[in-house]
């Protein structure tokens, strides 16, 4: 089932035409209404009239998160505050939050995109959608909620947390679709198991997960634990929220809603636009927003684009899963390390749960790198040699994959704090 065939299955020529028209309107709008953009464009010597083809997009300046922070809170809005009916902000862990605003039309566009995503996951009016993303300034909860309601599903606005209740209502209310972060989905799957409920006792058929990067190994664990098919939904509040893209039944990349967002991949160092298939930083230009349209916004997410034919029938460009953020990448003893790589190693061991914590520190002028990981329930505790050997094996696998050594310490299952939203997996005490 496809929510919007005209938009999702348009031929390339039609889509290009739609994109150009909307891009021109957007560039004109921000030039007129948003002083920071007018200044940027004047500095770059470019005017709205210079946008004559989609090729001209690369001549426009980039937008960074710092632009939003520097113009906190409403400096980047292109609509009057009276027209803004919703404000969201991202959880700035350092300094001020990043603020975004939505007009009524923006909220409808957002709901449209999320409805398309939920439909990709097999959703329709008969679905019972349990939204376990946090509700509040975070775009996850209200974003999923708006789209599910727009689609006509029965929405259960659980927000995150209260896992025992999530499981009880999931079973009693017969939820068919779960929306939350992948790490929370794992937490819920664990709770289902602990309650002694088997996956066939719950009505869940699919899950739509996002808001943090997750690995194929985590997907398998979630699908098995909940008896569902898991779908990736992608987005960021600056660009809109969840729903910018979503994976379809083919599970080979996420379809980007091209009539609302133009995607580019750039070399993060040079800013040069890269061809399809090459890894680089994902950049979005919003072409349907009124509240806070953004031109060439740098996401810091690393991925690549695919434009080959998708068997699902949709013609929209697909992005690979996010391979890492250029800013959660760690550099330890001179080596680039992604927490997702550590997950790949942990997933190989049945003896471990998927919960871990990395500690990066500094001692005697060298970086230290340690990992706490939990022993899974059911493993035999009696054999001390077995546990010692397990530790050696895990350390060996980490060294082989990462290229540097990591000291592993085991904990009892359930010792590490459980994630209800975005999981914190790294404690870096170095003052870099």
């Amino acid at each position, binding site marked *: 089932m496809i929510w919007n065939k005209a938009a999702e299955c348009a031929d390339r020529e039609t889509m290009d035409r739609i994109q150009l028209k909307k891009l021109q309107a957007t560039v004109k709008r921000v030039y007129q209404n948003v002083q920071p953009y007018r200044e940027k464009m004047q500095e770059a010597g470019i005017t709205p009239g210079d946008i004559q083809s989609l090729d001209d997009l690369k001549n426009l300046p980039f937008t960074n998160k710092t632009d939003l922070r520097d113009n906190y809170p409403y400096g980047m809005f292109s609509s009057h505050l009276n027209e803004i009916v919703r404000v969201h902000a991202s959880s700035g862990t350092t300094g001020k939050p990043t603020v975004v605003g939505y007009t009524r039309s923006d909220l409808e566009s957002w709901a449209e995109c999320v409805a398309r995503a939920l439909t990709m996951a097999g959703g329709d009016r008969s679905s019972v959608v349990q939204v376990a993303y946090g509700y509040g300034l975070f775009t996850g909860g209200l974003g999923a909620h708006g789209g599910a309601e727009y689609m006509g599903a029965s929405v259960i606005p659980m927000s995150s947390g209260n896992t025992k209740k999530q499981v009880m209502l999931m079973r009693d209310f017969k939820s068919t679709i779960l929306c939350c972060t992948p790490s929370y989905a794992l937490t819920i799957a664990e709770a289902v198991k602990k309650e002694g409920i088997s996956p066939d006792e719950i009505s869940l058929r699919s899950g739509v997960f996002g808001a943090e990067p997750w690995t194929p190994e985590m997907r398998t664990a979630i699908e098995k634990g909940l008896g569902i098919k898991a779908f990736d939904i992608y987005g960021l509040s600056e660009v809109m929220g969840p729903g910018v893209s979503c994976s379809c039944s083919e599970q080979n990349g996420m379809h980007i809603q091209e009539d609302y967002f133009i995607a580019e991949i750039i070399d993060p160092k040079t800013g040069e636009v890269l061809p399809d298939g090459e890894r680089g930083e994902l950049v979005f230009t919003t072409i349907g927003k009124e509240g806070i349209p953004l031109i060439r916004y740098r996401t810091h997410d690393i991925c690549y684009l695919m434009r080959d034919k998708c068997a699902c029938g949709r013609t929209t460009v697909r992005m690979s899963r996010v391979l890492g953020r250029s800013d959660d990448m760690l550099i330890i003893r001179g080596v680039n390390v992604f927490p997702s790589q550590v997950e790949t190693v942990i997933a190989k061991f049945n003896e471990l749960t998927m919960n871990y914590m990395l500690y990066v520190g500094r001692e005697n002028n060298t970086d230290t790198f340690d990992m706490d990981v939990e022993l899974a*329930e059911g493993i035999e505790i009696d054999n001390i040699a077995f546990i010692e050997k397990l530790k050696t094996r895990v350390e060996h696998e980490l060294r082989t994959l990462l290229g540097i050594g990591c000291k592993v310490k085991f904990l009892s299952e359930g010792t590490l704090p459980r994630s209800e939203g975005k999981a914190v997996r790294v404690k870096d005490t170095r003052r870099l």
Partner: protein
Amino acid sequence: MYIKQISVFLENTTGRLANFTRVLADNDISMKALCIADSDEFGILRCLVDDPEEAKKILQENGYSASITEVIAVEMESKAGGLYKILKVLAAHDMSVDYVYSIVGTRSDERSVIIIKVEDPKKAVDVLTSEGLRLFCLDEIE
């Protein structure tokens, strides 16, 4: 004739063992026997309790990784050669011993109980019984 022993994973942090004993106390669980095998960063605590399955469940609820292992409890004479008498039987039948710990009585007791972990408890029971040694069930041990 096998005895269900609980093995618990203990991280090597101050208070972990004390907390473990508190959990037992809070749940009215008494240990009949106890030993701890320690390593660099963790220890494995092995103990015998009245209801091992229930105790395992309670420990897991309290955040401890635990599992159940089958061991045997053999009556041993409390004098020189008492343990040798038991172990030589196992050795003669090519059975290796993983670990051993004892439940000792007072000076006046002539006998005590030795807990042995072997790879094949069934064979061990057969072999020891045929040599005239006495094995205990869990509820026979105080």
